[in-house]
């Protein structure tokens, strides 16, 4: 059961002429089995937050503890674009991120490919797949390492609405099955309401302005009255928070 503890996090980007604050004094905790969405307008530091959590970037100040019991948690990352190695086959892309090798590991990768309904593409190259299929491979890759924590950075934002909806369903089914802790970045409030157990809101300048539970039963039909009401309620709250002020 992976837990995240972020304390007083600050991230600055220094250029020749100025200093841009991407994240300002952000603190929050995420417990095990939660599906937490981070929402906010473009440029509010959502992706930077995930990059710091994954170790791609370092924080200017503050601490991040991601633990699984008494050890460091294993992270899976689904990016905005699939970020597959184009010169390796689909199955080899999954094997590339594994810390061990062997027939069991291969079988596990094949199982996750099957979960995203792409077992038949295992020997193909990413360039032979559509954008939606590539993103599914990216999701399978993240699940295939059996992570304690799954970081997802607007994974469906580049896809058409129908494909994105299908992938949201697949993601939800996989989360229900594996119960991994998920931190999901999106700018789409509807998506956050449909998938999350909790929503964290960032405002321009990287300030954390709201941390709200989503108390609706699963499965959530995005066309249902309950989801529509929750979405409208959240949007009203967010509008009152003046998110674009820096």
């Amino acid at each position, binding site marked *: 059961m992976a837990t995240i503890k972020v304390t007083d996090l600050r991230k600055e980007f220094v250029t020749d002429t100025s200093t841009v604050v991407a994240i300002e004094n952000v603190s929050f905790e995420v417990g095990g089995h939660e599906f937490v969405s981070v929402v906010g307008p473009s440029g509010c530091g959502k992706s930077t937050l995930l990059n710091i959590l994954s170790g791609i970037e370092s924080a200017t100040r503050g601490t991040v503890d991601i633990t699984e019991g008494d050890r460091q948690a294993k992270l899976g990352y689904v990016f905005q674009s699939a*970020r597959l*190695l*184009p*010169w390796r086959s689909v199955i080899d892309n999954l094997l590339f*991120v594994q810390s061990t090798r062997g027939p069991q590991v291969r079988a596990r990768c094949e199982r996750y490919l099957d979960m995203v309904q792409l077992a038949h593409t295992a020997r193909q190259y990413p360039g032979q797949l*559509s954008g939606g299929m590539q993103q599914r491979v990216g999701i399978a890759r993240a699940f295939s390492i059996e992570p304690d924590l799954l970081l997802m950075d607007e994974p469906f934002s580049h896809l058409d609405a129908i494909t994105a909806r299908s992938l949201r369903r697949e993601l939800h089914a996989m989360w229900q099955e594996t119960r991994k802790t998920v931190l999901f970045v999106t700018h789409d409030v509807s998506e956050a309401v449909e998938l999350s157990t909790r929503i964290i809101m960032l405002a321009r300048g990287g300030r954390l302005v709201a941390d709200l539970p989503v108390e609706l039963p699963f499965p959530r039909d995005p066309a249902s009255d309950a989801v529509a009401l929750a979405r409208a309620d959240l949007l009203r709250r967010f509008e009152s928070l003046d998110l674009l002020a820096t």
Partner: protein
Amino acid sequence: MTTVGTFRTLALSPPGRRVGSLLRHPRAARVLSWVGFVAAWQLVVPFLPTDLVPTPSEVAVFMWNELRMETVAPHTVYESFSLSFQRLGVGLFLAFAIGVPLGLLMGLRRWADWFLHDFVVVGLAMPSLVWALVAGMWFGFGDLAPVVTVTLAAVTFVVINVAEGVRNVPKELLDMSGAYGVSRYATIRHVIFPSLMPFFFAALRYGLANAWKGLVLAEVWASTEGAGWVIKFWYDAHRSQGIVGYALFFIIVAIFIERIVFGRLSRWVFRWRPSDDRRTPEPEATDRDEAVPAAVPAATPGRQ
């Protein structure tokens, strides 16, 4: 109306139409252009006020005799090209052995780029002729001068392409490797090295082209054997068909290397690059897809 019809008939009479459609076919157009060039060459040469320009038929006869090893030159065409290829191979190997580490250093370290950049530019700008002359003066007649010329002519192309390749390794793939905790060795082997392959190919192509020219010049000036030296032999013998014939041998070899060697190697190395006919279509709706209401109701049977 009638006039227009007559005009069209005259303009595109059946033979004219056939030639027109033939020229629109790329391969036929290419063959026709060569046939036209050779025919014009054959027809024009007899009217020139010199006997130092050979006709294509004279060149063809010369080349055929060379291939049958009926030659007055001290070495056959096979021996000459074999020796030149050996020199080219050794020189290119040295160019890559020196150029790859320097290119990696320039791509990875800014101070190395600042330190070496001007020398690389000088190397790129230097005519192969200068390398051939200098190498000939330094190392005299033998194998060393052509090998050094090949290395010097190719090494800067290797350095600049490898450095550029390193700078162009996709950052997002490196970040992905880092986020998943992939080892440094695996990242170099599976991310950095494959990203460099297009630049290696560019280095090989440009380096080889420049080295090939440098080799011929070095063999002309500083050797007593090799394909370049044989060209000089025919020059001294006032046999212009020998010079043109050997130039054509060079062209044939270059085309062979480009089309057969590089073409096949490139297709194999970059077999992962997508082509439209190899794309996998999105699968039809699966069981899970069908369990969800259709996004476009009109497309669902029975819901019209």
